[in-house]
């Protein structure tokens, strides 16, 4: 048991780039086009979530499982809509969820509607919202905690 734990520790230490916690960066209106740019390959899943959303954590966990199942074809980005005043709380929640290694953004504006609109005009701001952008430029957007069927559909 102890030998196995040591082995796990060594594996982790050998992969510093994987284990490094990504800083929570602000997402400004000017940053949105880059976020929405189709990836070079596979797909980017933009997981829009908020602190007060009861459905967001299980949704993020499900998306993380999907990403782990297809690590080379799927990029997962967490985007919190809460605003810069909630930076500490959002960073803490990401850490609690064990998702600190994923790229994470937080809206730079204190009300979400403007950046919501830039990301997707057909989205009224409900969270969770999952936006999938594929290398071929196609998109899929779904509001609400994803069902097993929806998760299967958005996978690569």
């Amino acid at each position, binding site marked *: 048991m102890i030998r196995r734990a040591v082995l*796990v520790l060594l594996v982790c230490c050998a992969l510093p780039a994987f284990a490094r916690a990504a800083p929570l960066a602000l997402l400004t209106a000017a940053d949105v086009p880059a976020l929405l740019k189709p990836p070079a390959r596979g797909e980017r899943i933009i997981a829009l979530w908020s602190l007060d959303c009861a459905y967001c954590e299980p949704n993020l966990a499900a998306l993380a499982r999907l990403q*782990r199942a297809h690590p080379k074809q799927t*990029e997962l980005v967490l985007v919190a809509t809460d605003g810069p005043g909630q930076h500490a709380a959002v960073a803490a929640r990401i850490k609690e969820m064990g998702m600190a290694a994923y790229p994470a953004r937080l809206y730079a504006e204190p009300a979400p509607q403007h950046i919501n609109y830039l990301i997707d005009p057909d989205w009224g701001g409900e969270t969770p919202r999952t936006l999938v952008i594929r290398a071929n430029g196609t998109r899929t957007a779904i509001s609400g905690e994803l069902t097993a069927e929806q998760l299967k559909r958005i996978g690569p």
Partner: protein
Amino acid sequence: MLMCSRRVPGFAFLLACSMPLAAAAHQAGQMDMAAMDQGPSLGASAAFGPDGRLWLATARDGHVQLRHSDDLGKHFSAAVDVNRTAEKIDAHGENRPEVSVLPDGTVSVAWTHPLAKPWTSEVRFARSIDGGESFSKPITLSGNNPNGSRGFATLAVAGNGEPVIAWIDNGDVNTPKIPGKPHAASLFYSWSNDGGKTFGAPRRMPGHSCECCRIALVREPDGRVAALFRGVYGDNIRDHSLAVLDTDGKPDDPARVTFSGWQVAACPEQGPGLAIGSNGVMHGVWYEAKNGPAIWYGQLDPGHPPKHVLKIGGPGASHADVAAHGDSVWIVWNQVNAKGYQLLERTSRDDGITFSAPRVIAESKVAVYSPQLLLRDGRAYTAWNTADGFRLIALHGAAGKAP
């Protein structure tokens, strides 16, 4: 801070070891804002007192702050801290510090106080009986369960001149569970018989409510207070419920008043607006997104689909409010586009049968909070808090233009 207590099992290790290299590269060149201050919040509410004075409640640095204006918002008094001891205040999403003024001039203030444990919070209340110069020590209205999650405290004044307060409680032990769901929320309310000095035990409204949307509270012609709130019907159908907050007998079940059938396991963070005319006609505005985002107006008919339904806005429209006086009905809402925000308005002069074309009555390049309609001497005003400051916009005097 209202939130269910569902937690995800830790899987940090597996996650870290399976991350794509792109994750680290994605952050290049971005600012680390970990040290950013909380700063002032956009969440705010306003109310006219019986003497026409305008009161404004905001939150900053752990204090609910109150200011007043005697010239319709052109100039304000210095801010007075409602809670002397700083505490966490939730003025985020649709939570906001709430102000209401009783007929005798007592100023009532309520807010949501997040507790140390994540997703726990309580409803706080304080009052001033000296014209807003000082406030009573805050009291907690939402019970003593340290694991409770309450929010969206909303105030109204009943016909007897006493304050009534309602809030959403997520996970109270008295709220029936929803099969297959880890959380269930309901509307709770309480009232005072001594001008807000004390309140009775909270009363739970039967049925379930949405966990993350504001409540609209309005006095009916008979003096009772009615609540319009987003409910949860069946499997996550997010239609709206209307309830009378009875202070005598047992409350009746809330009645369903919208039937859009929008089914979503999500937090809409867009509660409804309600106005009740002296003739008893109930004017509602609400958001749903079954076929794309939409704001609707309708005359509410408990248990039946609303009448005179009108689509007010589509993509980019949010957070509508409604007011009524005589045959006049006013609707305001935020409309966002790539350039910024507009405050839009439509007016009816025939009790909601027909409405004027939309017109823009204010604009903002910076973030804005939900508009709030206020009435004074039969005239409508919009309270609009923006990141650049608070504005009070008279609808009768606004120049307006086509959107």
